[in-house]
């Protein structure tokens, strides 16, 4: 069975971690061809060809695919769909935008956030913010799925697949890119970081979030936030961890001033070690933390940062 894996390409570069993790899931469904669609994506295609277990890489280099616009990208994927029984992608903002559109164009029901591949037609996925795991069997001729990367190990490198350049599909011209507002950061990317330090409502202000950032920088960690912190304007939206934000599973997750609503736990409870610092000893976060410290974060966090 043939699988088309849509690579995550950001700014013309392959997002190796997300793509390699989705590749591990895709390889359990069949022989994998990777599609790199972006503007100036030859380098991304070459990087994808080096991933272990890839049989071929398709490279669609066109300005229409430069900004993850759903309509032209969906049409491209659908134009290629005839050769594949499975069409999958790592579950990123870009793929969540395009894959359901692809599925509907193929008259298939998309299978979002796959956390385990039982067999080529049967998948596990979390529902109700991860409070239940559903096993679903697709009866569709084409299976369209997004892969939750935090639950799969990354495929290795050492492959040498061939790269085939393909033409663009017709652009329906329904949308155009205006601008990106992306904060430049030297910190690791949130979803692939080994350590994540997150702050919640208890941090109290955008200014005091510097405490969280200081600890993160000391640990070489990415910075996360609860929805409450983002809604209150303490942290930008792309830091949000949870049911509707990012799902992370680092080796170490440090939750500071976060009460632990189920919507937040949904995004981090698969972390290897969880540390919680909160002054409220009744906070639900302590029920999932390996190590809990009941303390005022404004004292504990500077002390912890100083002692590392």
């Amino acid at each position, binding site marked *: 069975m043939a699988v088309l894996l849509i690579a995550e390409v950001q700014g013309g570069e392959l997002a190796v971690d997300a793509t390699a993790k989705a590749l591990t899931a895709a390889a359990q469904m069949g022989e994998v061809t990777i599609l790199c669609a972006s503007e100036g994506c030859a380098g991304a295609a070459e990087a994808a060809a080096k991933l272990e277990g890839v049989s071929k890489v398709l490279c669609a280099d066109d300005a229409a695919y430069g900004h993850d616009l759903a309509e032209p990208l969906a049409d491209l994927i659908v134009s290629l769909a005839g050769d594949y029984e499975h069409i999958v992608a790592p579950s990123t903002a870009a793929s969540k935008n395009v894959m359901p559109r692809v599925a509907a164009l193929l008259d298939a029901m998309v299978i979002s956030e796959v956390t385990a591949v039982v067999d080529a037609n049967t998948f596990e996925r979390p529902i109700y913010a991860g409070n239940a795991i559903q096993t679903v069997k697709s009866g569709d001729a084409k299976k369209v799925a997004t892969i939750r990367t935090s639950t799969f190990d990354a495929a290795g490198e050492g492959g040498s697949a061939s790269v085939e350049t393909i033409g663009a599909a017709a652009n329906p011209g329904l949308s155009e890119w205006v601008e990106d507002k992306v904060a430049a950061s030297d910190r690791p990317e949130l979803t692939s970081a080994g350590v994540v330090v997150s702050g919640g409502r208890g941090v109290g202000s955008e200014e005091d979030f510097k405490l969280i950032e200081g600890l993160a920088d000391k640990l070489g960690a990415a910075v996360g936030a609860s929805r409450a912190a983002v809604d209150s304007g303490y942290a930008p939206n792309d830091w949000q961890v949870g049911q509707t934000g990012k799902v992370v599973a680092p080796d170490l997750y440090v939750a500071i001033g976060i009460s632990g609503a189920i919507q937040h736990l949904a995004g981090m409870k698969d972390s290897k070690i969880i540390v919680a610092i909160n002054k409220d000893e009744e906070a639900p976060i302590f029920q999932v933390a390996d190590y809990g410290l009941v303390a005022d974060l404004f004292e504990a966090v500077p002390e912890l940062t100083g002692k*590392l």
Partner: protein
Amino acid sequence: MKVLVPVKRVIDYNVKVRVKSDGSGVDLANVKMSMNPFDEIAVEEAIRLKEAGKAEEVVAVSIGVKQSQETLRTALAMGADRAILIVAADDVHTDIEPLAVAKILKAVIDEEAPGLVLCGKQAIDNDMNATGQMLAALTGWSQGTFASELDIEGDSATVTREVDGGLQTIKIKMPAIVSVDLRLNEPRYASLPNIMKAKKKPLDEKTAADYGVDTAPRLEIVKTSEPETRKAGEIVGSVDELVAKLKEAGAL
């Protein structure tokens, strides 16, 4: 311009979810149900468009069990002008898949001819995050997903979207499907007089069969299980002890 707002009746977001012991699903009997929180944001945005003179009529539509009319009454109390209930299931445990929902909504669009569909980006029960995108595919319309800002000017809309790296702004052609994210607005509470008024607003009732849509699921639910639970950890007494424990565990 007419705005169509699909709303879903889901388990209230504060309710603790329990998986049924026979693995057949999540227990929804005698559980508090509410409007999907993202859909509330969509309703609010539609009403604001009307208040700003950019929309003439807001039509709420819900697809599911008959009790979804309560959800529609909530939308009417918030300020929607009328509602359409499309009964597609008898049992509250039957979830109509986003593909079938999108097909029904497409049929509604063919009848109602809205200029904009505003929907929640995902329902907090099945967490699929799919209906808006699927509806955009079936209508051939543009899509602006995960919107945190929306500005409509004539035949196009500027949508700021919450994406992995931050925010992306795109310009889409109308008519369009816009799926809303958390930060678009803060939904209003319905006032008591408006709740009373909502009872008199028109609510049409139809069935999925009226639109000729087959709602049979494409994904067979093999089983529903409890997630693995984490073992309760330990409370440490000081920062020093925390550092020592983390070093011991190899985390530092």
